[in-house]
């Protein structure tokens, strides 16, 4: 095992390399492209024995990934944002084929207006499709999760594709020290893919995309996907435990940081959660009793784990780096559904929307969110959800609006 500086994209590529994937359908998109570039380079220099094919779109790419996985080979692919959404039809379809593979998504905000920087609306749009989801906070987790994801996807009681999610820029282009597992140890951990009856072959007709009418078989097949996803909780724990035994790093389904004696907790997903960790340390230095609860596994949703971790807390500040238009933070809603009506559920669940389109979340803002949550508990009154947006930012927007206004007037003058 060696320790090297790797970007999140580099770590994802190493994950695929160490998992000894057979087939990589690819299509470029910022900020993911570097993953495919790394793999292409290794295949070119014979450091990797795999086949990479560039497809004409993400829709075709995901179809190719599912079709290849249905032949029983190990498949890897990667995309981001608009690409993930362009392939959305096929995400639902290939999950229904029960053909396991691993797809890395590098989170990036969705158009319009278009951006390159990260938020989680892309990955959450794929929340209900049947892919399991692992969300990463560090580059190390990206690599480890890719290996774990193959075990999870290919497990006989799961057999569903898995998305490993990392944030654009904050992980994709950020180098951090990453332990590179020894190739042999990694290969041994991931093991050979036992495709069982997943063995689509030329001249041996198999139909994956069966049509079912009347609702009964449809209900059966779809609910079986849900049940298989739920099996993923137990399988994930087993696989993560085995990973920890072999490599010394435990990646819990829900990470709990300094939570045991905490009155308050932050709840959030993704790379910004490490900022919350730093804030927890600083708040504890200032006398607070606070921690962080951070789901790595979002699908299946570790409901019972959440309940156990949040039980008897005074309040939780839920920070969503996403927004469901007309509703609010997705994680906040999901958490509320887990806690509703349960004994000793925290009386206060504050909701913050922050980090949209890669907008930074400052340490001061994390301190302030803790304070708002404590005040809410003390006054027994939960405040309305809040967008993290400052007066300075509003001034910046007003400046842009003023420019737009002037230009529009000039344009109208030209037309007269």
């Amino acid at each position, binding site marked *: 095992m060696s320790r090297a500086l790797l970007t999140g994209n580099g770590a994802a590529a190493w994950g695929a390399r160490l998992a000894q994937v057979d087939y990589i359908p690819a299509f470029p998109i910022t900020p993911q492209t570097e993953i495919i570039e790394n793999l292409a380079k290794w295949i070119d220099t014979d450091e990797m024995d795999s086949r990479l094919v560039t497809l004409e779109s993400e829709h075709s790419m995901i179809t190719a990934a599912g079709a290849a996985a249905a032949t029983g080979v190990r498949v890897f692919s990667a995309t981001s944002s608009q690409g993930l959404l362009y392939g959305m039809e096929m995400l639902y379809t290939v999950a229904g084929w029960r053909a396991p593979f691993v797809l890395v998504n590098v989170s990036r905000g969705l158009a319009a207006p278009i951006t390159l920087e990260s938020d989680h609306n892309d990955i959450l749009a794929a929340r209900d499709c049947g892919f399991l989801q692992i969300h990463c906070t560090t580059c190390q987790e990206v690599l480890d999760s890719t290996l774990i994801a193959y075990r999870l996807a290919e497990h006989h009681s799961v057999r569903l594709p898995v998305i490993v999610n990392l944030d654009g*820029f904050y992980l994709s282009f950020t180098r951090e020290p990453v332990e590179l597992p020894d190739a042999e140890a990694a290969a041994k951990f991931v093991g050979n893919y036992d495709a069982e009856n997943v063995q689509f072959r030329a001249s041996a007709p198999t139909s994956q995309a069966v049509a079912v009418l009347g609702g009964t078989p449809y209900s059966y097949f779809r609910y079986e996907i849900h049940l298989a996803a739920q099996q993923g909780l137990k399988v994930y724990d087993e696989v993560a435990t085995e990973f920890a035994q072999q490599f010394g790093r435990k990646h819990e389904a829900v990470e709990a940081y300094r939570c045991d004696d905490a009155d308050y907790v932050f709840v959030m997903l993704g790379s910004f959660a490490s900022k919350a960790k730093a804030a927890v340390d600083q708040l504890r230095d200032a006398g607070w009793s606070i921690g962080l609860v951070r789901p790595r596994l979002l699908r299946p949703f570790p409901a019972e784990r959440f309940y156990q971790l949040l039980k008897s807390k005074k309040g939780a500040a839920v920070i969503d780096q996403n927004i469901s238009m007309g509703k609010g933070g997705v994680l906040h809603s999901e958490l509320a559904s887990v806690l509703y009506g349960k004994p000793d559920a925290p009386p206060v669940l504050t909701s913050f929307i922050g980090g949209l389109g890669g907008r930074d979340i400052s340490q001061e803002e994390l*301190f302030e969110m803790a304070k708002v949550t404590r005040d809410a508990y003390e006054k027994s009154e939960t405040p309305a959800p809040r967008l993290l947006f400052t007066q300075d930012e509003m001034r910046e927007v007003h400046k842009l609006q003023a420019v737009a206004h002037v230009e529009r007037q000039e344009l109208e003058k030209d037309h007269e």
Partner: protein
Amino acid sequence: MYRIRFHGRGGQGMKTASRILGSALFQQGYEVQDAPRYGAERRGAPIFAYVRAAKVLINERGIIRHPDLVIVADDTLVPIPAAGVLAGMDQHSVLFINSSTSADEWRSRLNLTGPVLTLPLTADIEDRAVPYVGAACAGAAACLLGVIPQQSLAKAIEDELSEHGAEVVRKNQQKAAQAFEAIAKHTGIVSEAEDISAHDYVDPGWLDLPFEQASISAPTIHAGLTSVEVKTGLWRTLRPVIDYERCNKCWWVCSSFCPDGAINVSNDGQPEIDYDHCKGCMVCVAQCPPHAIETIPEQQALQREEQT
């Protein structure tokens, strides 16, 4: 924790600079985080890259708000607000500028009281967007931190640039070593700032985002291309200059090929370059039939303008 920001233009190697420094610190036993930050990739546009280094695990992420050291590869960026060179600097932050203008001059221009250092790293190089600026900046940063020996710096350059061949490595090592030595009397001038206290911090100043009608809040631009108010000419590292004695006033070739419509033609058929918006892509230089458009390093053009 050390927090270092590199500011430069796309093409000047700021990402490479951050990686060289990151690698050197990693070799010295530091936990490291290094990253570039840019928009849609484009040569000449302001970009920055940053490095964090600490003896413990780093949980902080993203842009550096309160830098200990700011390295500026291109002094024309300092006065551009959008480049954010001075953002979050305080009394303890060290500002290093690649410039032939004196530190005192910069200190008074910028009204700074903290340490300012300058060094003309690239005086012998005409185009600012050539290699070595990045390596030289990394060399200066390594010296100012005072925790990186020269051998580590050389090794880091080899690690980061070896795929470009031995000659490139050697030249970059040489440039970095020159910068390192030139600034040696300031070795270790950079100090690590205290973390922000959760006791006593500046209120973020949130507001409730007001509802605005779609006529205002829809992201519509009522004009073609980029706003004229955005001076994209600031991205230029090379400047096309029309030699009107050779220009045969064909009136359309350069202006048609300009991808940004930054060449206007006057009523008498004379092309005029709009330097507020010319990004310096040099397509016009390649297209001009009588070769009447010359290429001049932007730095030189600015110096000429200052003199006249």
